[in-house]
Protein backbone atom coordinates (compact mmCIF):
# COMPACT_ATOMS: atom_id res chain seq x y z
CA UNK A 1 0.00 0.00 0.00
CA UNK A 2 1.31 3.40 -0.97
CA UNK A 3 2.36 5.53 1.95
CA UNK A 4 1.31 9.19 1.98
CA UNK A 5 3.11 11.94 3.79
CA UNK A 6 1.48 13.46 6.87
CA UNK A 7 1.26 16.79 5.05
CA UNK A 8 -0.78 15.16 2.29
CA UNK A 9 -3.21 13.62 4.80
CA UNK A 10 -3.58 16.89 6.70
CA UNK A 11 -4.22 18.63 3.41
CA UNK A 12 -7.00 16.16 2.52
CA UNK A 13 -8.64 16.56 5.93
CA UNK A 14 -8.30 20.34 5.75
CA UNK A 15 -9.85 20.38 2.28
CA UNK A 16 -12.82 18.32 3.46
CA UNK A 17 -13.38 20.63 6.45
CA UNK A 18 -13.01 23.69 4.22
CA UNK A 19 -15.43 22.17 1.70
CA UNK A 20 -18.06 21.61 4.38
CA UNK A 21 -17.50 25.16 5.57
CA UNK A 22 -18.02 26.58 2.09
CA UNK A 23 -21.21 24.52 1.59
CA UNK A 24 -22.57 25.51 5.01
CA UNK A 25 -21.67 29.16 4.46
CA UNK A 26 -23.38 29.15 1.08
CA UNK A 27 -26.49 27.55 2.57
CA UNK A 28 -26.79 30.05 5.41
CA UNK A 29 -25.99 32.92 3.06
CA UNK A 30 -28.66 31.89 0.58
CA UNK A 31 -31.17 31.39 3.36
CA UNK A 32 -30.45 34.88 4.64
CA UNK A 33 -30.80 36.29 1.14
CA UNK A 34 -34.17 34.62 0.73
CA UNK A 35 -35.27 36.21 3.99
CA UNK A 36 -34.03 39.65 3.01
CA UNK A 37 -35.44 39.47 -0.47
CA UNK A 38 -38.82 38.15 0.59
CA UNK A 39 -41.53 40.02 -1.28
CA UNK A 40 -45.03 39.25 -0.04
CA UNK A 41 -47.97 39.14 -2.40
CA UNK A 42 -49.81 42.35 -3.18
CA UNK A 43 -53.21 43.11 -1.68
CA UNK A 44 -55.18 45.63 -3.77
CA UNK A 45 -57.75 47.87 -2.17
CA UNK A 46 -61.31 47.14 -3.29
CA UNK A 47 -62.82 50.06 -5.13
CA UNK A 48 -66.03 51.27 -3.54
CA UNK A 49 -66.61 54.20 -5.91
CA UNK A 50 -64.94 56.16 -8.65
CA UNK A 51 -62.62 57.83 -6.14
CA UNK A 52 -62.72 55.61 -3.09
CA UNK A 53 -61.46 52.23 -2.01
CA UNK A 54 -61.22 50.02 1.07
CA UNK A 55 -58.41 47.83 2.33
CA UNK A 56 -58.94 45.31 5.13
CA UNK A 57 -56.05 43.73 7.03
CA UNK A 58 -55.39 42.17 10.42
CA UNK A 59 -52.60 42.05 12.96
CA UNK A 60 -51.88 38.82 14.83
CA UNK A 61 -49.68 38.09 17.84
CA UNK A 62 -48.06 35.21 15.93
CA UNK A 63 -47.59 33.98 12.38
CA UNK A 64 -49.71 30.80 12.45
CA UNK A 65 -52.37 32.34 10.23
CA UNK A 66 -50.24 34.20 7.70
CA UNK A 67 -46.88 32.45 7.67
CA UNK A 68 -47.93 28.92 8.61
CA UNK A 69 -44.99 27.31 6.81
CA UNK A 70 -42.19 29.22 8.50
CA UNK A 71 -40.25 27.58 11.30
CA UNK A 72 -38.89 28.92 14.55
CA UNK A 73 -38.54 31.70 15.49
CA UNK A 74 -40.61 33.35 12.76
CA UNK A 75 -43.75 31.36 13.61
CA UNK A 76 -43.92 33.30 16.90
CA UNK A 77 -43.43 36.71 15.30
CA UNK A 78 -46.19 39.29 15.32
CA UNK A 79 -47.40 40.12 11.85
CA UNK A 80 -49.73 42.07 9.66
CA UNK A 81 -51.94 39.78 7.62
CA UNK A 82 -52.59 38.65 4.90
CA UNK A 83 -49.67 40.61 3.45
CA UNK A 84 -47.63 43.78 3.87
CA UNK A 85 -47.58 44.92 0.24
CA UNK A 86 -50.60 47.05 -0.54
CA UNK A 87 -51.88 48.74 -3.68
CA UNK A 88 -54.41 51.55 -3.61
CA UNK A 89 -55.92 53.75 -6.35
CA UNK A 90 -54.52 57.21 -7.04
CA UNK A 91 -56.39 60.43 -6.20
CA UNK A 92 -58.83 58.59 -3.99
CA UNK A 93 -60.12 58.41 -0.45
CA UNK A 94 -58.75 55.22 1.04
CA UNK A 95 -60.39 53.53 4.00
CA UNK A 96 -58.18 51.10 5.86
CA UNK A 97 -59.77 48.69 8.33
CA UNK A 98 -57.47 46.82 10.71
CA UNK A 99 -58.61 44.02 12.99
CA UNK A 100 -56.08 43.90 15.79
CA UNK A 101 -55.92 40.56 17.63
CA UNK A 102 -52.78 41.46 19.56
CA UNK A 103 -52.33 42.74 23.12
CA UNK A 104 -50.54 45.95 24.04
CA UNK A 105 -46.83 46.70 24.00
CA UNK A 106 -46.23 50.19 25.43
CA UNK A 107 -44.71 52.54 22.92
CA UNK A 108 -41.51 54.35 23.86
CA UNK A 109 -41.99 57.42 21.67
CA UNK A 110 -45.04 59.46 22.66
CA UNK A 111 -45.17 60.95 19.19
CA UNK A 112 -46.91 57.81 17.97
CA UNK A 113 -49.76 58.10 20.49
CA UNK A 114 -51.32 60.68 18.19
CA UNK A 115 -53.23 60.19 14.97
CA UNK A 116 -51.63 62.02 12.04
CA UNK A 117 -52.59 62.59 8.45
CA UNK A 118 -56.07 61.06 8.41
CA UNK A 119 -59.21 62.75 7.15
CA UNK A 120 -60.68 64.51 10.17
CA UNK A 121 -57.51 63.91 12.16
CA UNK A 122 -58.89 60.86 13.92
CA UNK A 123 -59.36 57.11 13.71
CA UNK A 124 -62.31 54.95 14.70
CA UNK A 125 -61.62 52.39 17.44
CA UNK A 126 -64.59 50.03 17.53
CA UNK A 127 -66.58 52.84 15.86
CA UNK A 128 -65.55 55.48 18.41
CA UNK A 129 -63.51 58.46 17.11
CA UNK A 130 -60.11 58.76 18.75
CA UNK A 131 -57.30 61.32 18.23
CA UNK A 132 -54.76 59.88 20.66
CA UNK A 133 -54.33 56.64 22.58
CA UNK A 134 -52.73 55.99 25.96
CA UNK A 135 -49.16 54.78 25.40
CA UNK A 136 -49.79 51.73 27.57
CA UNK A 137 -52.73 50.59 25.45
CA UNK A 138 -51.05 50.49 22.05
CA UNK A 139 -49.97 47.26 20.44
CA UNK A 140 -48.86 48.52 17.01
CA UNK A 141 -48.91 51.55 14.77
CA UNK A 142 -49.61 51.80 11.08
CA UNK A 143 -47.31 54.59 9.93
CA UNK A 144 -47.16 55.41 6.25
CA UNK A 145 -44.30 57.61 5.13
CA UNK A 146 -42.72 58.99 1.99
CA UNK A 147 -39.43 57.97 0.51
CA UNK A 148 -36.84 60.66 -0.25
CA UNK A 149 -37.75 60.69 -3.93
CA UNK A 150 -41.52 60.90 -3.38
CA UNK A 151 -42.78 63.84 -5.45
CA UNK A 152 -46.03 63.86 -3.46
CA UNK A 153 -45.28 63.41 0.25
CA UNK A 154 -47.75 61.36 2.25
CA UNK A 155 -47.66 60.82 6.00
CA UNK A 156 -50.29 58.89 7.94
CA UNK A 157 -49.80 57.40 11.39
CA UNK A 158 -52.40 55.72 13.60
CA UNK A 159 -51.99 53.78 16.86
CA UNK A 160 -53.70 50.40 17.11
CA UNK A 161 -55.37 49.75 20.46
CA UNK A 162 -54.44 46.34 21.85
CA UNK A 163 -56.82 43.79 23.34
CA UNK A 164 -56.46 43.05 27.08
CA UNK A 165 -53.81 40.50 28.02
CA UNK A 166 -56.37 38.38 29.84
CA UNK A 167 -59.11 38.58 27.23
CA UNK A 168 -60.89 35.29 26.43
CA UNK A 169 -60.07 33.75 23.07
CA UNK A 170 -63.31 32.78 21.44
CA UNK A 171 -62.23 33.41 17.85
CA UNK A 172 -60.82 30.46 15.94
CA UNK A 173 -58.79 31.18 12.81
CA UNK A 174 -56.79 28.49 11.03
CA UNK A 175 -56.95 26.31 14.12
CA UNK A 176 -55.66 29.04 16.42
CA UNK A 177 -57.62 30.78 19.18
CA UNK A 178 -57.58 34.55 19.39
CA UNK A 179 -59.52 37.19 21.36
CA UNK A 180 -62.19 39.38 19.86
CA UNK A 181 -60.20 41.94 17.86
CA UNK A 182 -60.31 45.69 18.17
CA UNK A 183 -61.37 47.15 14.86
CA UNK A 184 -59.52 50.32 13.89
CA UNK A 185 -60.43 52.23 10.75
CA UNK A 186 -59.25 55.50 9.25
CA UNK A 187 -59.27 57.35 5.97
CA UNK A 188 -56.70 59.30 3.99
CA UNK A 189 -56.37 60.75 0.53
CA UNK A 190 -53.92 59.58 -2.09
CA UNK A 191 -52.36 61.77 -4.75
CA UNK A 192 -50.76 60.77 -8.05
CA UNK A 193 -49.13 57.34 -8.45
CA UNK A 194 -46.12 56.67 -6.31
CA UNK A 195 -44.53 54.23 -3.88
CA UNK A 196 -44.46 54.65 -0.11
CA UNK A 197 -43.31 52.58 2.84
CA UNK A 198 -45.12 51.85 6.05
CA UNK A 199 -43.94 50.48 9.33
CA UNK A 200 -44.98 49.73 12.90
CA UNK A 201 -43.31 52.04 15.44
CA UNK A 202 -44.22 50.10 18.55
CA UNK A 203 -41.32 47.88 19.75
CA UNK A 204 -43.33 44.69 19.30
CA UNK A 205 -40.48 42.56 17.95
CA UNK A 206 -38.36 39.97 19.72
CA UNK A 207 -38.84 40.07 23.51
CA UNK A 208 -40.96 43.21 23.10
CA UNK A 209 -38.42 45.25 25.03
CA UNK A 210 -36.00 47.87 23.72
CA UNK A 211 -33.65 47.40 22.05
CA UNK A 212 -34.76 43.86 21.15
CA UNK A 213 -38.30 45.00 20.43
CA UNK A 214 -37.04 46.49 17.19
CA UNK A 215 -35.56 43.30 15.82
CA UNK A 216 -37.10 40.21 14.22
CA UNK A 217 -40.53 41.05 12.72
CA UNK A 218 -39.88 44.78 13.12
CA UNK A 219 -36.93 44.54 10.78
CA UNK A 220 -38.27 42.06 8.28
CA UNK A 221 -40.37 42.74 5.22
CA UNK A 222 -43.60 40.78 5.35
CA UNK A 223 -44.26 41.12 9.10
CA UNK A 224 -44.40 44.64 10.55
CA UNK A 225 -43.11 46.62 7.60
CA UNK A 226 -44.08 46.88 3.96
CA UNK A 227 -44.89 49.05 0.99
CA UNK A 228 -47.93 50.88 -0.25
CA UNK A 229 -48.16 51.52 -3.97
CA UNK A 230 -50.46 54.23 -5.27
CA UNK A 231 -51.44 53.33 -8.84
CA UNK A 232 -54.03 54.09 -11.46
CA UNK A 233 -56.63 51.33 -11.62
Amino acid at each position, binding site marked *: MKQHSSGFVIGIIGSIILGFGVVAGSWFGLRSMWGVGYEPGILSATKTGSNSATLSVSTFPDSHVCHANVGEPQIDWVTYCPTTSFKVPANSVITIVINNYDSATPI*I*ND*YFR*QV*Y*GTIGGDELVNNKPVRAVNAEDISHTF*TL*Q*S*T*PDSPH*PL*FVSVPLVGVPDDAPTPVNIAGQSYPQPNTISFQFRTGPPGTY*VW*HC*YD*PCGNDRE*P*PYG*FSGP*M*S*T*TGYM*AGTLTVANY
Partner: protein
Amino acid sequence: MSETDIDPIIGSPAPESKEPRHLRRVLILWAVFSVIGIAVWLAVARFILPPAATDLDNSDNFTLLVFTVLAVPVAMFVWVFLGYSLIVFRVKERPIADGIPLKPTPLLQIGWLSITGILCLFLVIWGLFGFYQETSAAPSNALVVQVTGQQWLWTFYYPQYGVSSQGQVLELPVNRPVIFNVTSKDVLHGFAIRALGVRVDANPGEVTTTPVVTPTRTGSYTVVCVELCGLYHSYMWSAVNVVSESSFSSWVVSQGGHV
Protein backbone atom coordinates in the same frame (compact mmCIF):
# COMPACT_ATOMS: atom_id res chain seq x y z
CA MET B 1 17.45 65.25 -1.92
CA SER B 2 19.70 66.17 -4.82
CA GLU B 3 21.50 64.15 -7.42
CA THR B 4 24.77 64.69 -5.56
CA ASP B 5 23.39 62.70 -2.65
CA ILE B 6 23.04 59.58 -4.74
CA ASP B 7 26.06 57.37 -5.02
CA PRO B 8 26.69 55.68 -8.32
CA ILE B 9 26.05 51.96 -8.27
CA ILE B 10 29.19 50.21 -7.17
CA GLY B 11 30.69 48.25 -9.96
CA SER B 12 28.39 49.59 -12.62
CA PRO B 13 29.87 51.01 -15.80
CA ALA B 14 30.29 54.76 -16.06
CA PRO B 15 27.42 56.51 -17.85
CA GLU B 16 28.12 57.24 -21.46
CA SER B 17 26.18 60.48 -21.53
CA LYS B 18 25.31 63.03 -18.88
CA GLU B 19 22.30 61.99 -16.80
CA PRO B 20 19.36 64.42 -17.09
CA ARG B 21 18.52 66.47 -14.01
CA HIS B 22 15.61 64.38 -12.80
CA LEU B 23 14.94 66.24 -9.58
CA ARG B 24 14.63 69.58 -11.34
CA ARG B 25 12.26 68.03 -13.89
CA VAL B 26 10.10 66.47 -11.23
CA LEU B 27 9.90 69.66 -9.19
CA ILE B 28 8.88 71.65 -12.24
CA LEU B 29 6.24 69.05 -13.13
CA TRP B 30 5.02 69.02 -9.53
CA ALA B 31 4.70 72.82 -9.46
CA VAL B 32 2.86 72.90 -12.81
CA PHE B 33 0.43 70.11 -11.90
CA SER B 34 -0.19 71.62 -8.47
CA VAL B 35 -1.09 74.99 -9.97
CA ILE B 36 -3.34 73.30 -12.53
CA GLY B 37 -4.96 71.15 -9.84
CA ILE B 38 -5.64 74.11 -7.56
CA ALA B 39 -7.03 76.14 -10.44
CA VAL B 40 -9.34 73.30 -11.49
CA TRP B 41 -10.55 72.83 -7.90
CA LEU B 42 -11.24 76.53 -7.46
CA ALA B 43 -13.15 76.54 -10.74
CA VAL B 44 -15.35 73.50 -10.00
CA ALA B 45 -15.75 73.87 -6.23
CA ARG B 46 -18.85 76.02 -6.53
CA PHE B 47 -20.54 73.24 -8.53
CA ILE B 48 -19.47 70.46 -6.15
CA LEU B 49 -20.05 72.02 -2.74
CA PRO B 50 -23.75 72.19 -1.82
CA PRO B 51 -25.31 75.58 -1.19
CA ALA B 52 -25.01 76.73 2.40
CA ALA B 53 -28.04 77.97 4.31
CA THR B 54 -26.17 78.99 7.48
CA ASP B 55 -22.94 80.78 8.37
CA LEU B 56 -21.76 77.54 9.95
CA ASP B 57 -22.17 75.66 6.70
CA ASN B 58 -20.44 78.52 4.86
CA SER B 59 -17.51 77.94 7.21
CA ASP B 60 -17.65 74.21 6.47
CA ASN B 61 -17.57 74.87 2.74
CA PHE B 62 -14.68 77.34 3.15
CA THR B 63 -12.77 74.77 5.21
CA LEU B 64 -13.28 72.18 2.47
CA LEU B 65 -12.09 74.72 -0.11
CA VAL B 66 -8.92 75.64 1.79
CA PHE B 67 -8.06 72.11 2.89
CA THR B 68 -8.40 70.82 -0.65
CA VAL B 69 -6.14 73.62 -1.91
CA LEU B 70 -3.57 72.50 0.66
CA ALA B 71 -4.05 68.83 -0.20
CA VAL B 72 -3.55 69.21 -3.95
CA PRO B 73 0.23 69.87 -3.79
CA VAL B 74 0.67 67.00 -1.33
CA ALA B 75 -1.21 64.60 -3.60
CA MET B 76 0.65 65.88 -6.67
CA PHE B 77 3.96 65.44 -4.88
CA VAL B 78 3.22 61.72 -4.50
CA TRP B 79 1.64 61.17 -7.91
CA VAL B 80 4.24 63.12 -9.91
CA PHE B 81 7.19 61.38 -8.25
CA LEU B 82 5.49 58.01 -8.68
CA GLY B 83 4.49 58.63 -12.29
CA TYR B 84 7.87 60.05 -13.26
CA SER B 85 9.67 57.10 -11.70
CA LEU B 86 7.43 54.57 -13.41
CA ILE B 87 7.97 56.15 -16.81
CA VAL B 88 11.58 57.34 -16.78
CA PHE B 89 13.21 54.60 -14.74
CA ARG B 90 11.32 51.70 -16.27
CA VAL B 91 13.56 48.80 -17.36
CA LYS B 92 12.53 45.79 -19.37
CA GLU B 93 14.93 43.36 -17.80
CA ARG B 94 14.66 42.20 -14.25
CA PRO B 95 17.22 44.28 -12.28
CA ILE B 96 19.96 42.21 -10.69
CA ALA B 97 21.88 44.94 -8.86
CA ASP B 98 20.97 46.42 -5.52
CA GLY B 99 19.16 49.71 -5.38
CA ILE B 100 20.98 52.96 -4.96
CA PRO B 101 22.03 53.44 -1.33
CA LEU B 102 20.57 56.60 0.16
CA LYS B 103 22.40 58.74 2.67
CA PRO B 104 20.59 60.68 5.39
CA THR B 105 20.47 64.35 4.60
CA PRO B 106 19.87 66.64 7.60
CA LEU B 107 18.56 69.46 5.47
CA LEU B 108 16.03 67.17 3.81
CA GLN B 109 14.89 65.67 7.10
CA ILE B 110 14.55 69.01 8.86
CA GLY B 111 12.77 70.49 5.87
CA TRP B 112 10.33 67.60 5.61
CA LEU B 113 9.50 67.65 9.31
CA SER B 114 9.17 71.42 9.33
CA ILE B 115 6.84 71.62 6.36
CA THR B 116 4.57 68.80 7.53
CA GLY B 117 4.68 70.12 11.10
CA ILE B 118 3.65 73.62 10.05
CA LEU B 119 0.90 72.15 7.87
CA CYS B 120 -0.50 70.05 10.74
CA LEU B 121 -0.24 72.98 13.17
CA PHE B 122 -2.18 75.13 10.73
CA LEU B 123 -4.93 72.50 10.51
CA VAL B 124 -5.12 72.19 14.31
CA ILE B 125 -5.39 75.98 14.81
CA TRP B 126 -8.01 76.16 12.07
CA GLY B 127 -10.02 73.38 13.74
CA LEU B 128 -9.75 74.97 17.21
CA PHE B 129 -10.97 78.28 15.84
CA GLY B 130 -13.92 76.55 14.15
CA PHE B 131 -14.69 74.63 17.34
CA TYR B 132 -14.70 77.88 19.34
CA GLN B 133 -17.16 79.42 16.88
CA GLU B 134 -19.47 76.39 17.03
CA THR B 135 -19.51 76.13 20.82
CA SER B 136 -20.06 79.80 21.61
CA ALA B 137 -23.01 80.57 23.90
CA ALA B 138 -26.51 80.32 22.46
CA PRO B 139 -28.46 83.57 22.11
CA SER B 140 -31.53 84.00 24.31
CA ASN B 141 -34.07 83.81 21.49
CA ALA B 142 -32.82 80.50 20.09
CA LEU B 143 -35.43 78.06 18.83
CA VAL B 144 -35.10 74.65 20.49
CA VAL B 145 -36.07 71.55 18.51
CA GLN B 146 -36.08 68.14 20.15
CA VAL B 147 -35.15 65.57 17.52
CA THR B 148 -35.89 61.88 18.08
CA GLY B 149 -34.63 59.18 15.79
CA GLN B 150 -36.40 55.85 15.63
CA GLN B 151 -36.15 53.14 13.02
CA TRP B 152 -36.94 54.68 10.52
CA LEU B 153 -38.34 58.12 11.09
CA TRP B 154 -37.25 61.46 12.56
CA THR B 155 -39.78 63.16 14.80
CA PHE B 156 -39.53 66.82 15.82
CA TYR B 157 -40.93 68.47 18.95
CA TYR B 158 -40.89 72.22 19.57
CA PRO B 159 -41.06 72.58 23.39
CA GLN B 160 -41.40 76.38 23.28
CA TYR B 161 -44.62 75.95 21.29
CA GLY B 162 -45.82 72.64 22.75
CA VAL B 163 -46.16 71.08 19.33
CA SER B 164 -44.78 68.26 17.22
CA SER B 165 -44.38 68.33 13.48
CA GLN B 166 -47.20 66.28 11.99
CA GLY B 167 -45.20 64.55 9.31
CA GLN B 168 -41.78 64.26 7.78
CA VAL B 169 -41.20 68.02 7.97
CA LEU B 170 -38.83 70.16 9.99
CA GLU B 171 -40.02 73.76 9.78
CA LEU B 172 -37.55 76.51 10.70
CA PRO B 173 -37.79 80.31 10.69
CA VAL B 174 -35.16 82.21 8.74
CA ASN B 175 -32.60 84.34 10.61
CA ARG B 176 -33.40 82.81 14.00
CA PRO B 177 -30.80 80.73 15.84
CA VAL B 178 -31.72 77.07 16.27
CA ILE B 179 -30.47 74.42 18.69
CA PHE B 180 -31.21 70.75 18.09
CA ASN B 181 -31.39 68.35 21.04
CA VAL B 182 -30.92 64.98 19.40
CA THR B 183 -31.58 61.52 20.77
CA SER B 184 -32.61 58.04 19.64
CA LYS B 185 -35.19 55.57 20.87
CA ASP B 186 -33.54 52.42 19.57
CA VAL B 187 -30.21 52.24 17.78
CA LEU B 188 -27.53 54.69 16.73
CA HIS B 189 -28.70 57.14 14.08
CA GLY B 190 -26.97 60.09 12.44
CA PHE B 191 -28.84 63.40 12.26
CA ALA B 192 -27.52 65.47 9.38
CA ILE B 193 -28.68 68.56 7.53
CA ARG B 194 -25.89 69.31 5.09
CA ALA B 195 -27.15 72.75 4.10
CA LEU B 196 -27.19 73.89 7.73
CA GLY B 197 -23.81 72.37 8.58
CA VAL B 198 -25.42 70.09 11.19
CA ARG B 199 -24.28 66.52 11.70
CA VAL B 200 -24.46 64.74 15.03
CA ASP B 201 -24.97 61.20 16.26
CA ALA B 202 -28.35 60.32 17.77
CA ASN B 203 -27.45 58.06 20.69
CA PRO B 204 -30.05 55.93 22.47
CA GLY B 205 -30.57 57.14 26.03
CA GLU B 206 -28.55 60.32 25.59
CA VAL B 207 -29.34 63.81 24.38
CA THR B 208 -26.72 65.51 22.24
CA THR B 209 -26.99 69.24 21.65
CA THR B 210 -25.80 70.62 18.34
CA PRO B 211 -24.01 73.94 17.88
CA VAL B 212 -26.23 76.97 17.38
CA VAL B 213 -27.03 77.45 13.71
CA THR B 214 -28.90 80.30 12.11
CA PRO B 215 -30.57 79.58 8.76
CA THR B 216 -29.96 82.63 6.60
CA ARG B 217 -31.61 81.47 3.37
CA THR B 218 -35.18 80.42 2.88
CA GLY B 219 -35.59 77.20 0.91
CA SER B 220 -36.11 73.47 1.06
CA TYR B 221 -33.43 71.18 2.36
CA THR B 222 -33.25 67.63 3.71
CA VAL B 223 -32.58 65.77 6.94
CA VAL B 224 -31.00 62.38 6.36
CA CYS B 225 -29.78 59.60 8.59
CA VAL B 226 -26.04 59.12 8.09
CA GLU B 227 -25.58 56.00 10.24
CA LEU B 228 -26.62 52.69 8.71
CA CYS B 229 -29.54 51.76 10.97
CA GLY B 230 -31.42 48.87 9.41
CA LEU B 231 -33.97 47.81 6.81
CA TYR B 232 -35.34 51.24 5.82
CA HIS B 233 -32.30 53.34 6.68
CA SER B 234 -32.27 54.87 3.22
CA TYR B 235 -35.86 56.03 3.73
CA MET B 236 -35.12 57.75 7.03
CA TRP B 237 -35.34 61.34 5.91
CA SER B 238 -37.38 64.50 6.42
CA ALA B 239 -37.89 67.71 4.52
CA VAL B 240 -36.49 70.93 6.00
CA ASN B 241 -38.37 74.12 5.17
CA VAL B 242 -36.71 77.40 6.08
CA VAL B 243 -39.48 79.99 5.94
CA SER B 244 -40.23 83.53 7.07
CA GLU B 245 -41.05 84.20 10.72
CA SER B 246 -44.72 84.81 9.91
CA SER B 247 -44.99 81.60 7.89
CA PHE B 248 -43.37 79.71 10.73
CA SER B 249 -45.90 81.11 13.21
CA SER B 250 -48.75 80.07 10.91
CA TRP B 251 -47.27 76.61 10.59
CA VAL B 252 -46.99 76.25 14.38
CA VAL B 253 -50.68 77.08 14.73
CA SER B 254 -51.60 74.66 11.92
CA GLN B 255 -49.82 71.87 13.80
CA GLY B 256 -51.83 72.56 16.96
CA GLY B 257 -49.29 74.70 18.79
CA HIS B 258 -49.51 78.14 20.37
CA VAL B 259 -47.46 81.21 19.39
